């Protein structure tokens, strides 16, 4: 049994940490990046590539330098700490996970992503899909040996700046059938995008398309397993991101409690506040533990993988709410302002529960997978 990081991973952690700190040192910088055309900084993304951060999300088998559950968590915890809005999730993780899970992995595209030359996104969610892996209304039909796609996709993270998009579409069956789904590679130029920012400051888009060409990547069981794996990878990454955010929320709150005086004493000396801080600290350790478990078992069989990811993401949802709300409440008024960073951390923490399955979704999946 070993709970410590290997030397290589410690190095990865330190390098990435230093890099993020230098580029995201305050919340204003993030605000500037957000206002850029793509909702992030292309320059930063290029540097991330040069530094190997993107390749840290990809297995050496496909030209990366990491790609394990642990690697993903190290990087995303740091993304959480810096509240980084670059397309690590969409391009770096989700797209690469699909491209590398195919029977014929698309190593060329993976390498272009790693090199920062290609941006991609995974368009799976739809307006009426509440996190389900197999809920797909978008249609695919074969016309003269060419797949044609029709429909719309929602909440596609960084979908507007993607060069290529992987779209899940239904080849046959009803909207809720487990079978009959295909994954298709599409050129984003053919897609009608309506980009917008999310409440937590990320870029997302609504996509619609009529009769556009798609390249079939996989279908049926393989496609479904691919979606499940990709969504689990996303849920794991977001859980690790949440751990980083929670830690910052806790630290910011503690700092504030030490400096802020009320009734002639620093607020932090009030016992009721201290006890609430201990509750927060304890729950953060719980989440950290659950994420460690999920990350260290991510390469095992899919039941173990998904069960532990669901445990982590469920706990992230429950504890995230506690940490976000308590951080704001214990700060008081200042946390309600745009200028002070804790509000942005809290917003992201809450909205993580709206991505890749919320606490209820993952509790139900955990129930199923552990036969409760």
């Amino acid at each position, binding site marked *: 049994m070993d709970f410590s990081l290997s030397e290589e991973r410690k190095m990865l952690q330190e390098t990435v940490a230093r890099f993020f700190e230098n580029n995201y040192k305050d919340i204003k910088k993030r605000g500037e990046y957000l206002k850029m055309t793509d909702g992030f900084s292309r320059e930063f993304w290029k540097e991330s590539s040069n530094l190997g951060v993107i390749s840290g999300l990809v297995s050496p088998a496909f030209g990366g330098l990491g790609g394990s559950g642990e690697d993903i968590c190290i990087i995303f915890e740091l993304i959480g700490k810096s509240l980084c809005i670059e397309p690590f999730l969409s391009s770096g993780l989700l797209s690469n996970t699909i491209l590398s899970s195919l029977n014929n992995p698309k190593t060329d595209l993976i390498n272009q992503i790693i090199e920062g030359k290609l941006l991609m996104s995974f368009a799976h969610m739809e307006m009426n899909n509440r996190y389900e892996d197999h809920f797909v209304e978008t249609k695919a039909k074969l016309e003269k040996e060419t797949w044609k796609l029709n429909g719309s996709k929602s*909440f596609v993270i960084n979908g507007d700046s993607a060069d290529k998009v992987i779209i899940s579409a239904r080849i046959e069956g009803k909207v809720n059938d487990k079978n009959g789904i295909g994954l298709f590679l599409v050129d984003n130029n053919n897609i009608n995008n309506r980009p*917008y920012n999310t*409440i937590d400051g990320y870029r997302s888009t609504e996509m619609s398309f009529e009769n556009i060409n798609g390249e079939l990547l996989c279908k049926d069981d393989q496609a479904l397993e691919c979606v499940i794996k990709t969504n689990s990878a996303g849920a794991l990454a977001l859980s690790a991101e949440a751990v980083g955010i929670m830690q910052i929320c806790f630290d910011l709150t503690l700092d504030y409690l030490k400096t802020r005086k009320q009734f002639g004493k620093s607020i932090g000396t009030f016992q009721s506040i201290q006890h609430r801080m201990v509750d927060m600290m304890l729950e953060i350790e719980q989440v950290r533990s659950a994420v460690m478990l999920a990350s260290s078992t991510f390469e095992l069989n899919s039941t173990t993988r998904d069960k532990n990811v669901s445990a982590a993401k469920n706990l992230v949802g429950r504890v995230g709410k506690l940490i976000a709300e308590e951080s704001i*409440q214990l700060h008081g008024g200042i946390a309600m*302002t745009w200028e002070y960073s804790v509000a942005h951390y809290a917003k992201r923490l809450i909205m993580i529960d709206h*991505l890749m399955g919320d606490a209820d979704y993952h509790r139900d999946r955990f129930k199923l997978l552990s036969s409760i």
Partner: protein
Amino acid sequence: MNFEYSKKDENFRIEVREWLRETLPHYLSEKVKKYQRLTKEDYELFMNNLSKKGWLAWHWPVEYGGTGWNAIEKHIFEEEIVKASAPRIVPFGVNMLGPVLIEFGSEEQKNYYLPRILNNEDWWAQGYSEPGAGSDLASLKTTAIDKGDHYLVNGQKTWTTLGHHADMIFCLVKTDLNVKPQLGISFLLIDMKSPGVEVKPIITLDGEHEVNEVWFTDVKVPKKNLVGKENEGWTYAKYLLTFERTGIAGVPNSKSALNHLKMVSRKSMKNGKPLIDDPIFSSEVAELEIDLLAMEIFNLRTVSAATEGKAPGMESSLLKIKGTLVRQKTTELLRKALGPQALPYLPEQFDEGWNEMPIGPEYAGPIAKQYFNMRKISIYGGSNEIQKNIVAKASFGL
């Protein structure tokens, strides 16, 4: 015991409802329903109407132009305003300053300011909080130095709601720096157009501008603008804070939010079925409804005791705490109900006249924003922690 409204009360309710139906413009209630931003004119339109009807000073005694309503009637009035999706009545002049002037103001102040409040001529703001003094008002730093015929005011107020619209502001200022924190505070009326007054917007976490900082640099304030006696402002401030507030629990708002929640969870789908059919989600809604039902009675008990002249003490604090928890829980469940639809955030959607296609259902737009915005209600007006301190001190004999 009898929890039914009397025939007289029911008639009063109908009167208020009818009046709102006749006078409240459709576009305005639509804006409120859609959480769109209200302009200064929107607020003023509604308040002018109330003023004309003689209902603006609903908390005041009849002899000053108030309604003379009892607590039940006030409660009904508040309920109907919310139900009609009217703008909220900006409370600083009519609900806060008014009662203080009536109790402690000079004849000159009463004669000048009260009619102007009644006629909605001045937009008032509240100058209590400071960057270093949130719930703890005793540690104020803004000073007013006696310069013979005027005070010279320096300092900074914060969280000044709608202060960017204000003509006048009532402030707590330090007039004696050499005494214990709670002494040496005075209650001053300051013209916002005075040289040296500067209003700076505070953008809140939801991206909105509703509150402000107000800076005072060598602002001259005539002595006649002192309310009551110098250095006794703490008494007036407390009077204002504990002034009978029938609406502190926000029952009408939570009821309306709960109905909204039920509507949203009937429309939101989970696995192809309405979310409200999900046993866990509907259980959360049901227990929230039960909490609200109990709180409504708790509130009515307190209101009813107030009509008999019993001043609500710790009940106000308890209702404030529970009221904020229930309201926040409603916004939380609304947010949860949306699932991923809570993500998109289109700031322009809250502007009047916005008529693009919303992303997802129209009701989804304001929900996450509202959830974050509502975090404030357990912080301001004396945070829930402060309320607990007050109850403990007043009731436990510890």
